[in-house]
């Protein structure tokens, strides 16, 4: 009898092929661990960089589940002696993590109120039946809403509206038609553009505000953030619509009957009931609390108050929140923020910032341009490969250690982490529209690179000519 059956060997080989990146990251971390610590870097900093590399490989390759990556980060921080267990635990939980947790739970609570049909009616009354106006309307509403409540919530509510219109047009070939592509992209890209508008637009904004405060670099209130970022959003929406229109010019210039059918369909739904009115009321309360209370109690606690109210008023069951909240992502962002804090504390962030500026200095003689390139372009590119919040959690401490005005650098990096136009995995909204099966992967790049360049240029103009006026 052989020691191992053919089946066991086959299963083992299957595991090896599926986990090759895990094995590679293990070997890489061992090799790097035994290499001498580079000059100017502390041994703790050396070890934290090893953890960052392992985490990046595992997140990108998805060879183990995201919560497992989060747990591994925490284990490695303690086992490699970067910090004590208590130190790691305290860096793991912060207001930014409360915010990410609260906003994901709020998203589930809002989506479950059945407000999507109301929203459809409002959007269509605003846009009329011309296709270009519908595209602009989708982009505008997605941007404005996602600036307050998180892009995935908006995409979830807007998607059925777009799908209904596409279906009602009655095309023979819906998949990857210009009309379906442009309508779905107007939601995803609109939501991405909008998510920079306020601190509550995305977890990454809260992470950056948390870093600035934690590292003693400055306090940013909700309204100050809006003053910096909202004009960019308002300028980007029409330009992005223009780019999308000329990239995916649909043959249907008017969608008269599709709009009419959809209006009839949504008009059948009842008027707002008491529960829905209460749900809107709670959200308005949360919004004003973010503006007026968050400087005192934090963005995360305000989001959690909102969740508490939704649960207490019976507007949503805990089972729904529990089932639909991505706890794995919360764990991962917590671990990534802990990693960011440890990078700062061990001096690894400073060392990496110095090295990055040194190497980038070979290309760009001017340090400001080099810093700008790393802060905006590198963050923007990495956000399209990783997740935006994970990107910012890791890159945040590095860019903040590059010198210059930390507020400008921090907000720029945070905004650049929303330039998630190029790939399916760039953001949950890109994944949501791709999951419909109506969009081809290559279409993301087709329009995305133009939007990416437009966003970088606009951010450069605004940060150079507008931000100095309001500081």
């Amino acid at each position: 009898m052989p020691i191992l059956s053919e089946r066991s060997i086959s299963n083992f080989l299957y595991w090896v092929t599926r986990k090759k990146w895990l094995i590679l990251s293990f070997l890489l971390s061992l090799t790097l661990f035994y290499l001498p610590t580079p000059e100017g870097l502390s041994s703790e900093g050396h070890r934290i960089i090893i953890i960052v590399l392992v985490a990046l490989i595992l997140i990108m390759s998805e060879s183990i589940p995201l919560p497992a990556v989060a747990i591994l980060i925490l284990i490695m921080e303690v086992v490699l002696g970067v910090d004590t267990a208590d130190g790691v635990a305290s860096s793991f939980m912060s207001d930014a993590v409360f915010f990410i947790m609260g906003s994901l739970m709020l998203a589930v609570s809002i989506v479950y109120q059945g407000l999507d049909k109301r929203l459809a009616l409002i959007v269509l009354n605003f846009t009329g039946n011309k296709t270009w106006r519908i595209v602009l309307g989708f982009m505008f509403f997605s941007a404005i809403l996602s600036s307050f409540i998180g892009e995935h919530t908006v995409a979830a509510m807007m998607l059925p509206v777009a799908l209904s219109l596409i279906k009602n047009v009655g095309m023979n070939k819906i998949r990857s038609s210009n009309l379906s592509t442009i309508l779905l992209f107007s939601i995803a890209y609109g939501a991405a553009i909008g998510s920079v508008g306020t601190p509550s637009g995305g977890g990454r904004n809260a992470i950056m505000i948390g870093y600035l405060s934690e590292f003693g670099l400055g306090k940013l209130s909700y309204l100050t953030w809006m003053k910096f970022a909202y004009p960019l959003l308002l300028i980007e929406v029409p330009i992005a619509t223009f780019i999308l229109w000329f990239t995916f010019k649909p043959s249907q210039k008017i969608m008269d009957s599709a709009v009419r059918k959809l209006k009839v369909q949504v008009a059948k739904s009842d008027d707002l009931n008491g529960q829905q009115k209460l749900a809107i009321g709670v959200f308005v309360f949360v919004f004003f609390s973010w503006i007026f209370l968050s400087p005192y109690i934090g963005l995360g606690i305000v989001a959690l108050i909102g969740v508490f109210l939704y649960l207490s008023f019976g507007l949503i069951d805990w089972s729904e929140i529990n089932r639909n909240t991505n706890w794995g992502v919360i764990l991962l962002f917590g671990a990534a923020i802990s990693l960011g804090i440890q990078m700062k504390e061990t001096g690894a962030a400073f060392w990496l910032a110095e090295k990055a500026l040194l190497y980038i200095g070979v290309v760009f003689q001017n340090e400001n341009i080099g810093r700008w390139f790393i802060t905006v372009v590198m963050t923007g590119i990495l956000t399209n490969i990783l997740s935006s919040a994970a990107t910012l959690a890791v890159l945040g401490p590095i860019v903040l250690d590059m010198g210059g005005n930390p507020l400008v650098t921090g907000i720029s990096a945070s905004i650049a982490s929303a330039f998630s136009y190029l790939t399916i995995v760039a953001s949950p909204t890109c994944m949501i529209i791709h999951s419909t099966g109506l969009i081809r992967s290559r279409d993301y790049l087709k329009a995305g690179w133009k939007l990416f360049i437009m966003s970088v240029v606009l951010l450069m103009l605004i940060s150079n000519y507008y931000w100095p006026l309001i500081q």
Partner: protein
Amino acid sequence: MKILIAISSKEYSGSTLGLGMKVASALKASTTIVDVGEKINEFGSKDVNIVNQLIETWDFNRPGVEVLEWAHDFLAKNNFIEIKEDQSQPLKNKLIESETDRSEVFLKGKIGNNLSLILRNGDIIGELRSEVEFGGYDITIIGGSKKRSMSHDLIQYINSSIFIVKNYNPKNQYKLLLVVDESPNIKKVLKYGVRIAKEFSIKLTLISNEDSKQFSKKYENLIRYVNKLLRRCKVNYNSLKRNGNLEEEIISAASDKHIIMMGASGSSPITKFFKGSTPLNVMNRCECPILIVK
């Protein structure tokens, strides 16, 4: 007997479904059709879930259901299944999740005999492997892929026979090319070959090969046994005896109007992993449908 047919889209799955169902009816097998949708990144998996729940309230199908609906209608239109309109069936398409990323689909008001529809999401090899484990299928039928690693992974990791429907044209009259070699699964190859040849009254060609000029005694006995069996089953066949490299001989004997049937290699999984195998090489090189029997 149970057969699994993997489809992907309306544009490319017609021939896989057609030939797959012919094989299933020849082997009197119950059939499951699976659509494996693209893997959803973990960052967005819950969001996509919420969206799927939401679009159901708008009476939209989840992505993938329409492909299964099309497959169901395709089979009914081509008389592979009989559809009964059944009032007891759900009023709208219903998905019952049996495990993570696996749902059984029940189409509204319809019931097809001996047919199940499954929706999965994820890495194609991983999902097919799980589905075969879950359902204990004998044969997995799938369309051809240009990716060489795909055929390697299918043979290496899927625990069922693999039928790759490559360049199949339903208008052509096909012949079976049955490879008689020392594969441990040769009896099963014969069983499938005889049933398919008899069901469709198609001609069967046996191909045997020995590297050296002389066939070994053991191999001669095997060929004799195969001939005897085919005569007894009254199958119309002819034989090709070759001396050369088995892979080259099969490729030169197989035209695009053949369906190749051969047993999986008996080498150890490690040898197959690093060095490949004759069935794998034939699968990669041939321009016609091929069934590798495990």
